[in-house]
């Protein structure tokens, strides 16, 4: 009998949601503040992307990056964007950023503050440009592929495009060596496949949320994109490859600790359940 009541009180303490929730919060926040550094194996998919950027792109190349995600998706996509930007800047590439959505503007400004170290010795207008929000979704994508200066006249900060040295070097889809789409939606990937890759053959690279990954897989399988980075896992691997450990790797630690906490609680729940069941069976046979 006392065995049963002891089990019950144990269950009451361990099974209380307050304890679980508090531990869960800590297991997510602490690893972000102090990363544990659990080693990450590099998957072939991420390695392929890295090798492509590293080997196939000429030094001083031009890259277009579509920034299309709302702030809630930041945790999964921003680390990918930072790692890719770091890799491209290290190679001396020049980047034109643009957003087909209004929330992309907020995401870009947050990204720039998070990755301030990357932009320190880069000059705006010469090494990178942010075009800002371009309205018109797929129609705008098609128009940009023909001519950026023909679509919009000023960048996000109101500078005229003719005044920016980088924008005098590039104007249409074929001027770019690679186009990277960092998006939380699925449609935008299809826009670029239809309007940039199919007519002009520009190589595309995708960075997507882990829930979106499977639905854009067919594009990669069909060779319409050179590869894709999916969620925090890919970000963590890419961070290891480019040697700038950041949120991706810290998030993987947070993912590990929180998942293990849940596994531990599942185990405890089962242990209590079975010991209760066993002891009640013994009680029944008395």
């Amino acid at each position: 009998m006392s065995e049963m009541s002891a089990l019950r009180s144990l269950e009451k303490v361990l099974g209380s949601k307050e304890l679980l929730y508090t531990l869960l919060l800590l297991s997510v926040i602490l690893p972000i503040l102090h990363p544990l550094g659990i080693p990450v194996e590099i998957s072939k998919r991420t390695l392929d992307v890295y090798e492509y950027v590293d080997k196939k792109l000429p030094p001083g190349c031009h890259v277009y990056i579509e920034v299309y995600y709302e702030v809630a998706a930041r945790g999964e996509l921003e680390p990918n964007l930072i790692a890719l930007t770091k890799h491209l800047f290290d190679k001396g590439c020049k980047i034109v950023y643009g957003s087909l959505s209004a929330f992309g503007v907020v995401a870009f400004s947050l990204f720039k503050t998070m990755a301030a170290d990357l932009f320190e010795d880069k000059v705006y207008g010469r090494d990178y440009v942010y075009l800002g929000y371009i309205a018109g979704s797929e129609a705008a994508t098609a128009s940009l592929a023909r001519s950026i200066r023909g679509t919009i006249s000023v960048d996000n900060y109101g500078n005229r495009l003719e005044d920016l040295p980088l924008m005098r070097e590039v104007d249409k889809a074929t001027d770019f060596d690679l186009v990277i789409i960092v998006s939380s939606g699925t449609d935008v990937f299809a826009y670029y496949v239809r309007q940039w890759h199919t007519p002009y053959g520009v190589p595309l690279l995708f960075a997507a949320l882990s829930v979106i990954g499977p639905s854009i897989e067919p594009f990669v399988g069909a060779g319409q994109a050179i590869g894709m980075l999916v969620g925090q896992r890919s970000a963590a691997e890419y961070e290891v490859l480019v040697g700038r450990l950041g949120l991706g790797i810290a998030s993987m630690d947070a993912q590990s600790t929180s998942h293990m906490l849940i596994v531990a609680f599942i185990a405890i729940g089962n242990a209590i359940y079975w010991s209760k069941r066993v002891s009640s069976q013994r009680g029944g046979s008395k």
Partner: protein
Amino acid sequence: MSLVVRRYAPQAIVTIIILLTVMFFYFYVNPETSEAFSRADKALSDWVVVITSFALIVGGIDILRFHLVRMRKEGLRQAPFSAVTISLLVLMVLFALHGWYLSYADPAAGIAITTQPQFRWLYLNVYAPADAAVYSILVFYMASASYRAFRVRNPMALLLLVVALIVIFGNTTVGGLLWPGFLSLRDWVMTVPNTAAFRPITIGAGLGIIILGLRLLTWREVSWMGRRE
């Protein structure tokens, strides 16, 4: 007569629109007809957008009424909170209307309904964080639901637990430390059994759509009409 305009005419509209949209999709006359049809298709979708917008405005009025009634009926424990809801609702609408006015009065300023500054402030500092917080409160619920759900009561629950553990270990870096095979096993679970499991459900959902279409076409489905005569 009254039954004709009250019931039969709306039902006839439903039947005609469904028949036309389906027929023009499967039948083919000539390229011009297809072109005209896809334009009509786009127009109909826009019609729905317009009608739904009015429904949302009607819904807003209902929320207002609901909270006014609660303020009157439930006393001090509820009234201040309902007052908060009502005043924020009214404020948001007023700011939106102001933005709408500005978009015509001063187009150069580039202010529209959803970019009116005060409207944006409320959106960014009340709506957006609350929305994201309710979405992410799910992480807590996932944890407590796992604690309860994965108890091995019977063989089926054991199967569930094993699959869940494979996915959990495959998703995290800790799993890779324990056994490198978790990653590929997880990929297999997510592609083969997972795809197979949801295929019958997808087929079933499609059949549900067809049969509901039949009930609407034959005037047997009347629940959308609301009040009965």
